[in-house]
């Protein structure tokens, strides 16, 4: 063993420097997308009691669906559940193209996932927590939202759709 500083082969030293630079590059690109372009991950929104969230009349998820907060701006309260059947409530949402929709999703039983195809909306749905992301729909069409986390035997049939009208 030596008390000398570590010996590093020049090739390897260069490679290490290069690796570090590359990782910094990736980190920068990610940061630009997150803080410059607003492509963010979900943040803590609110906490609810999963045992009553679907039935309590004060709970927006007792009456899930779309709410127009102001012109072109919507809140979509979506409830995911496995009991009695695996489904999202509501199963279908219709918004005009150009709308910006904030999704508030929670579960009244087990964990679920929520991914809207061809968009950046993709998050976990965890009982007791509310997941929120906001998506702007510019192109008309049908966007399925599907369950991406195992939630029992009906996991594979659990989906809904957002219809974006021109």
């Amino acid at each position: 063993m030596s008390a000398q500083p570590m010996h590093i082969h020049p090739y390897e030293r260069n490679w290490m420097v290069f690796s570090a630079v590359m990782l910094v590059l990736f980190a920068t690109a990610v940061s630009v997308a997150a803080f410059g372009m607003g492509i963010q991950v979900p943040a803590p929104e609110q906490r609810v009691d999963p045992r009553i969230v679907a039935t309590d009349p004060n709970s927006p998820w007792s009456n899930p669906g779309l709410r127009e907060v102001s012109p072109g701006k919507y809140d979509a309260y979506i409830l995911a559940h496995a009991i009695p059947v695996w489904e999202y409530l509501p199963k279908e949402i219709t918004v005009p193209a150009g709308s910006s929709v904030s999704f508030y999703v929670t579960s009244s039983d087990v964990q679920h996932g929520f991914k809207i195809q061809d968009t950046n909306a993709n998050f976990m749905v965890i009982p007791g927590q509310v997941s929120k992301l906001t998506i702007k729909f510019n192109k008309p069409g049908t966007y399925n939202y599907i369950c991406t986390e195992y939630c029992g035997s009906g996991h594979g049939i659990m989906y809904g759709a957002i219809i974006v009208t021109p």
Partner: protein
Amino acid sequence: MKQYQLSTGEKKFIGSHLLVAILALSVGSLFGPLQAFEHAGWDIYPYIKPLIKSYYQGLTVHGVLNALVWTTFFIMGFLTFNVMFGLKRPLKNPTLNKVGFWLMVVGVVAAAIPILANQATVLFTFYPPLKANWAFYLGLTLVVVGSWVEGWGLFMTYFAWRKENPKELTPFIAFASLVTALLWQICTIGVATEILTMLLPWSLGLIAGVDPQLARTYFWFTGHPLVYFWILPAYISWYAMLPKQAGNGKMFSDSLARLSFWIFLVLSTPLGFHHQYVDPGIPPVWKFIHSMLTFSVFFPSMMTAFTVIASLEHAGRKNGGKGTFAWIGKLNWSDPSVAAQLLAGILFFFGGIGGLANASYNVNLVLHNTAFIPGHFHLTVATAVTLSFMGISYWLLPYLTGKKLWMPKLAVAQAWIWFVGMIIFSNAMHVLGLLGAPRRVPLGLAPYVPPEWNSRLFQVGVGGAILFVSGACYLTVMLMTALSKETVKEEVEVPVAESMQDLALTPVWLDRWAPWIYGALALIVLVYGPVLFDLIKNIALTSPGFRVW
């Protein structure tokens, strides 16, 4: 240099790890192809209904046995071997290690019973509030505790060795194995806390509910270092054994190899939030900090790539290899152990790229919980790790049993078949994920599958079939070797590569444990402390259990 000779008892002890591991792999791998076939539209599950009730029960068996049991048993056996062989001394307290081993075995049996009875179809991530039978959680606890006990046995052996050799540099394979065992001790605190404070009392009916967000956070505290626990033994083999096997090469840089293991120890735990980027209950700031730490832990893997390839190049050039790439052909490809590990290493490049994408904070939004994820970990744990372990067992089994490896050519073919099958399978899975296909779904039946996924789903089935053939070849070779009467003439040589660099040049601080352990613990407290503190302070045990399978 005189090699350490393991006694028959010691060989039996290592061999029993291998036996349980391979048994688990053989049962678990039966179900892999069934998932793949289902994707391609050939659903076999209805025909095996008396035995296995559903796709998800099969998936649970596949995940638990292959990802948890096969790896843990093989690794504990391999690490124990490395410590004894590297330190050239028997275990300090073999009884302790035996106790650990048997705890693990009892744990596996305890977990297997509810799984097979369809009482624990919760997949290997067992996210509450899906509620399995208590025996499942108890079994998992015993496996973890057993592995701790075995780890303590290894540390005691190291302390005894250190007492006898106060000035010597710890031999690399023993050093790296001890770091791996230590990493495991630190990181499993998370899952142990999850099970002991929440899941076990809950499944026994002592508490009415759990907090799913907190449970997930505990789980991923262990969940990501777990993959380093899987991959580091493969790294040990790639660093220190493969160059020797591939052509009597030397390890390019002893000090940097050690440094990378220390970085793994320090950095592999405090980054678990990169599995929870899209969890609602964790502040984005902390997710971002974890993502930056995840980028940092990619760094030692880049160092590993350099050192391992350079060592292999040394071997190839020694064998007369020329040119920029031509030396690759001069490696000892006819040795099944070499072929398996080289092919595992090649696919690990792509596993690394996929991992980098997953780890990239918001880029994960494109991929989270899509088929990309199983595609990724079939390149990492199911190829880089599993295929390497298969390669290791091609010399380890003859060494332990004294039997000649049965049909080495079939063994070489097995590695290649795995390689081809995995390329087809994982490429299709990655592409499906980018197209938006979710993971853990019997896609053959899912109502929302658009037609453009179909060709890829077919490829998944084809890949699964090829992998099944390869797995069957592996088990045949193992079984026939164990049963064969043909013994090896002289003891199988354990391939340990010397360092290219004089070991006297390895700095003394790379053989000191305390600063690294303090660093690891401090970093864990720093980046996990605040969030766990908040989650525990605001704990809400409001989720009762559900059995919806």
